[in-house]
């Protein structure tokens, strides 16, 4: 049975996201997709959704939603909130705990916890029409999601509702790791001088407030270029986590809304196992990096997947 959710209040950066839009980067179309895939996928798994079911991604402030037409099961991934029941009673809803909204009932997320990003996942997924194989919103080109834009008060989105069976919850707040962010060097690590690379891995950077879904700027010791080299390259392909270094020497780590190609030297790429917790970092957060090999990055990714599966499997059924 189809249901809808109505947005009553939203932060400025709430968008529909799924795992992203692939196969079209050769035409300049960015992947977009959930920035914090760990939280997004775990939220979906708690609901019994496939990993790629579309959810609402929000930054700092979550959207207040009301169920319409039919019960809607929800979970907040990345910070708790509260429920307003049909009788007007309010009850807390911790993160990582499913709840079912009857028509007319509301979910009011609080601020994100443990990071800057959160997901409001719904059982069955947000059922906006896929565009080029994905429901992800790419705001700059008004592409996908709900009318290609961030959500606003009054918007109503279809949900493929499947609110059946008992509620579920994680026993504890999940973690996808800690410590330095692992980096595979390349493709332009030879544009930097060796001392500069050593310094990059020895120093602590901070996330700049000038960060968004395209990328996070870092402030800290400037990288220095090898003799005869500079920041400019002949533009080449991009990847999530790529560490681009413009002429200022201050790195920018690329996120889902990054351009498909870039013209600045890339020192390396934050590994897939660490990019979710990197994307989650708040402005001002300290950042350290550690270099790893491709093989180590592959092993880390397998471990990440196992952790995700184990966390989802450890979810408890509520009375």
């Amino acid at each position: 049975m189809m249901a809808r959710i109505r947005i009553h209040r939203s932060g400025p950066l709430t968008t529909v996201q799924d795992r992203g839009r692939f196969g079209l980067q050769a035409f300049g179309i960015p992947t977009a997709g959930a920035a914090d895939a760990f939280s997004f996928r775990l939220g979906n798994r708690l609901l019994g959704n496939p990993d790629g079911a579309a959810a609402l991604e929000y930054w700092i402030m979550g959207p207040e939603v009301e169920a319409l037409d039919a019960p809607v099961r929800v979970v907040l991934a990345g910070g708790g909130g509260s429920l307003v029941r049909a009788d007007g009673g309010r009850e807390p809803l911790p993160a990582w705990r499913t709840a079912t909204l009857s028509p007319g009932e509301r979910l009011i997320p609080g601020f994100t916890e443990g990071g800057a990003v959160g997901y409001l996942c719904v059982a069955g997924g947000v059922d906006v029409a896929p565009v080029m194989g994905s429901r992800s919103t790419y705001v700059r080109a008004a592409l996908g999601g709900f009318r290609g834009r961030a959500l606003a008060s009054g918007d109503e989105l279809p949900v493929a509702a499947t609110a059946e069976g008992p509620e579920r919850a994680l026993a504890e707040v999940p973690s996808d790791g800690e410590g330095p962010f692992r980096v595979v060097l390349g493709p332009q690590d030879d544009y930097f001088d060796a001392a500069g690379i050593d310094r990059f891995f020895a120093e602590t950077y901070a996330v700049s407030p000038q960060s968004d879904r395209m990328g996070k700027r870092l402030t800290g010791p400037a990288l220095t270029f090898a003799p005869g080299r500079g920041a400019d390259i002949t533009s080449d392909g991009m990847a999530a986590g790529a560490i681009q270094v413009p002429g200022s020497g201050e790195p920018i780590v690329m996120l889902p809304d990054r351009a498909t190609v870039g013209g600045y030297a890339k020192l390396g790429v934050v590994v897939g196992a660490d990019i979710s917790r990197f994307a989650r970092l708040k402005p001002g957060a300290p950042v350290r990096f550690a270099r790893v090999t491709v093989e180590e990055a592959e092993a880390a990714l397998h471990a990440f997947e196992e952790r995700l599966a184990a966390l989802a499997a450890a979810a408890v059924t509520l009375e």
Partner: protein
Amino acid sequence: MHDGPKLKSLGEAALSIEYGEAIDPAANARVMALYAALEAARKEGALPGVVETVPTFRALAVHYDPLRIGRADLVERLTPWLDTRAGEAVAGRTWVLPACYAGDFAPDLAEVAERSGMSADAVVALHAATDYRVCILGFVPGFAYLSGVPQALRLPRRTSPRTAVPAGSVAIAGEMSGVYPLESPGGWHLIGRCPVPMFDPAAEPPVFLAPGDVVRFSPVDADAYAALRARVEAGTFDPADLLAEEAR
């Protein structure tokens, strides 16, 4: 140019196959040949785990799922293709894009003319008399880097980029020309406006130009521009109408 490309990590989920570091027609031809070959193989299922490949001027990015195929196996799979030569690439189509080189649509035309030592009419005639090649698409959806700007029109980028270049702007910088698909910041010289969208999310495909295609511009006056815009807005415009006669 060296024979073998260099394989470089772009993280553990992508590989950059590089043919040199500079913009070079021979390198780009190798990239395009490899792109065509790998995309064909991928679509036939011969490259399991490969998600997509993205050609740029002198490198091909191969994006793959490291949970399905590790780097070592991927490199082994790709090796037989790395010798793919130009000439094996599928020939691109030829498109004729209308462009109005007049008035507010061409804010930099006078300056380009002055710096090139020609009349504005001569700049337009030269720009429109040239066959450009779609080297790559990128940075934003549907922005085609069109190589082949005649030597006389090659100017460095503007020293002060505009914060908002209107969608449809026909621009030049160095050896490249292009049409801005969306309003975006930009430092190229704006010499005209194209009435047909380079990117239409509702269309199939959303971007009609493809890497390897040929583009030439056909000057239209303001009335013809307006008529084409009206067709675009009414939804009756079909990009196939822009295919050159010989390509239909």
